[in-house]
């Protein structure tokens, strides 16, 4: 939900105008580097495998940094610190799962996904589900579920890009959307995932550098974490309680949805296919976890630091919690640091958008035709065409009602989690799972998520404090998966091809 919440949080924010010469200059430099990488990558993209999985030729460090980049959106820079500022340490339960999610993903999915890619030349997540259950139906259903989630993500990411670019260059929201989406489209359509990966490497590095510098600045400005805590404890001790100002159930719900749900996020899971050598997976979780910790230092330090600075009178009270990062950057930190962070936020939204454009294009040109027993003749050409269509559709949708876009962005993470985690993550590790169980689980996740999110959004129904549609949908999907697989267990082993079984046995 880092992605969804991030985009939603950005939607709530009227980011202040940061168009100072240094910010604009760093912004222009950022876009120049992105375009340079894109031109380079476009010359190396010749096949559909290059376009969708970078020809399975990405090295360990590049893949790790890229994966960190797509795992974090603008939320880590704007919405997250604002959330901590508002509710205290309870907001940390969104990012604490990073301690286990990367290595959990490595054990549960990475090896089997990468080996399936080796055995079957697979390029998408629905490919893996189709191969596991030997089912076009399961592949098609999972493709539809991912596509529904991507619709929301793309519209909200396009709007978030517009908000950030408008803040950096002062060009207006509409132009911000078209510029951001135009640049993202340029590298998505020309260089596919190869351009995306190497831009992610640049963008992820930028985010990590910006985050570490802000973290060090806040500690120095506040006189160390101890002094910051003392100031807060003197005024608002609940803020530094283990749950902050939210209920234990709500905090633990965050932990559950963000930890278990990470196994179903296609933008991260899809990356497993791309590693050049499967044996390089050995150091992937360690590097990715360390990278995420660096990027998330800003999340914690700004949220807690700004609270302390406001309480001590060193910073004026905020108009809204989401102003925590902009207020710190534009009033306290050196302007060059502000410039780096604003470019980092743009990088985060573009990185996420590129990844989803690529996955969406693969679904339309590859998974859905396969589900209907067809093959697109030239997947590379059609992949590029669909990439353009998805980007334009997202930009147009983002220009429309903010309410509608906000609604679309709400359910992305939960939808991916509830539809994919049982069928993919458990299914690839349990030979007793059945096609019927997988399809019932995917359908349950899709229906429950959409129904509950719609009902909650339109206030037809209110959840008790601490309960979310994402969590309920994921739990329901798990239980349906287990029960239906158990009921239909007689068919389990007959539904696994020998090469898939080998991959599952290893």
């Amino acid at each position: 939900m880092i992605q969804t919440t991030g985009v939603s949080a950005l939607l709530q924010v009227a980011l202040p105008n940061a168009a100072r010469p240094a910010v604009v200059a760093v912004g222009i430099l950022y876009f120049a580097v992105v375009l340079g990488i894109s031109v380079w990558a476009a010359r190396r993209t010749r096949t559909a495998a290059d376009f969708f999985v970078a020809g399975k030729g990405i090295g360990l460090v590049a893949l790790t940094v890229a994966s960190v980049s797509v795992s974090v959106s603008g939320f880590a820079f704007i919405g997250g610190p604002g959330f901590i500022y508002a509710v205290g340490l309870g907001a940390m339960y969104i990012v604490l799962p990073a301690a286990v999610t990367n290595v959990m993903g490595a054990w549960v999915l990475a090896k089997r996904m990468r080996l399936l890619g080796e055995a079957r030349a697979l390029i998408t997540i629905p490919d893996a589900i189709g191969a596991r259950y030997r089912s076009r139906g399961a592949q098609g259903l999972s493709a539809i579920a991912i596509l529904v989630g991507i619709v929301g993500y793309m519209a909200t990411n396009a709007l978030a890009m517009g908000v950030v670019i408008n803040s950096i260059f002062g060009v207006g929201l509409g132009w911000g959307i078209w510029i951001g989406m135009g640049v993202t489209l340029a590298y998505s359509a020309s260089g596919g995932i190869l351009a995306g990966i190497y831009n992610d490497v640049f963008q992820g590095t930028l985010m990590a550098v910006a985050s570490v510098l802000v973290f060090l600045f806040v500690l120095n400005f506040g006189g160390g974490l101890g002094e910051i805590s003392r100031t807060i404890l003197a005024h608002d001790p609940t803020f530094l309680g283990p749950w902050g100002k939210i209920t234990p159930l709500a905090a633990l719900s965050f932990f559950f949805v963000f930890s278990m749900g990470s196994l179903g996020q296609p933008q991260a899971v899809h990356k497993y296919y791309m590693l050049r050598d499967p044996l390089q997976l050995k150091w992937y979780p360690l590097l990715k976890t360390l990278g995420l910790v660096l990027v998330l230092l800003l999340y914690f330090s700004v949220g807690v630091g700004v609270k302390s600075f406001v309480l001590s009178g060193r910073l004026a009270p905020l108009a809204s919690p989401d102003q925590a990062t902009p207020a710190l950057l534009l009033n306290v930190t050196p302007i060059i640091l502000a410039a780096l962070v604003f470019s980092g936020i743009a990088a985060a939204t573009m990185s996420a958008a590129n990844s989803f454009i690529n996955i969406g294009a693969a679904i339309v040109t590859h998974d859905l035709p396969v589900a209907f027993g067809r093959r697109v003749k030239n997947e590379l050409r059609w992949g590029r065409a669909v990439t353009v269509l998805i980007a334009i559709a997202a930009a147009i949708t983002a220009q429309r009602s903010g309410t509608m876009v906000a609604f679309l962005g709400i359910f992305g993470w939960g939808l991916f989690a509830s539809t994919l985690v049982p069928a993919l993550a458990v299914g690839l590790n349990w030979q007793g799972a059945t096609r019927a169980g997988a399809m019932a689980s995917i359908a349950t996740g899709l229906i429950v998520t959409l129904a509950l999110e719609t009902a909650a959004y339109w206030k037809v129904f209110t959840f008790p404090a601490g309960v979310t549609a994402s969590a309920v949908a994921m739990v329901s999907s798990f239980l349906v998966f287990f029960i239906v697989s158990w009921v239909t267990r007689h068919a389990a082993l007959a539904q696994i091809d020998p090469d898939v079984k080998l991959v599952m046995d290893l």
Partner: protein
Amino acid sequence: MTEPITMAPATGEDVTRRSALVALFIGISAIAAGYLAAFTTAGTPIWAAWLLALGIPVALGAIMILGAARGRRGIGPLKIPFAFVVVVLVIGFGAALALPATEGPLSTLWLGLPARAAIVIYGVGLLPIVVLPLAYALTFETQTLSAEDVERVRVLARENQAATDNVPREPIDDKLRG
């Protein structure tokens, strides 16, 4: 070294995976019960949070074991880091729920944070980072993936490729096959 792959049903021999599946089901059921309890008209009972505090570590530990288990070999030395992390999560969540709220201006700070917050941030958020990725890397060749494993998959892939005349295989439902 890799063990021979048998075509025998996994359910009869794979105790580790079966145990992990049972634990995963129990963990998810506990979480579901916690959420159901929140819907009661009297408000969310305190034990609902305890169900999540216990169910989440069990579910996460179980799915990691499910992914790491290799046939009859089970999880080998990984049982120690897995147990450690599950215990750390249970203790971290449990301490946050059970310890009294004593945060105030005179609180003793642990690495800059009051005790309960330090347990959560440094215990739940940082301790697993020290243990799990290193355990993964140090046991990678023996427990996760060896060069022989990769070669076996590649050999089978080449055989399949030859058999299907260089046409990538697509998933086929049994009824569609017929």
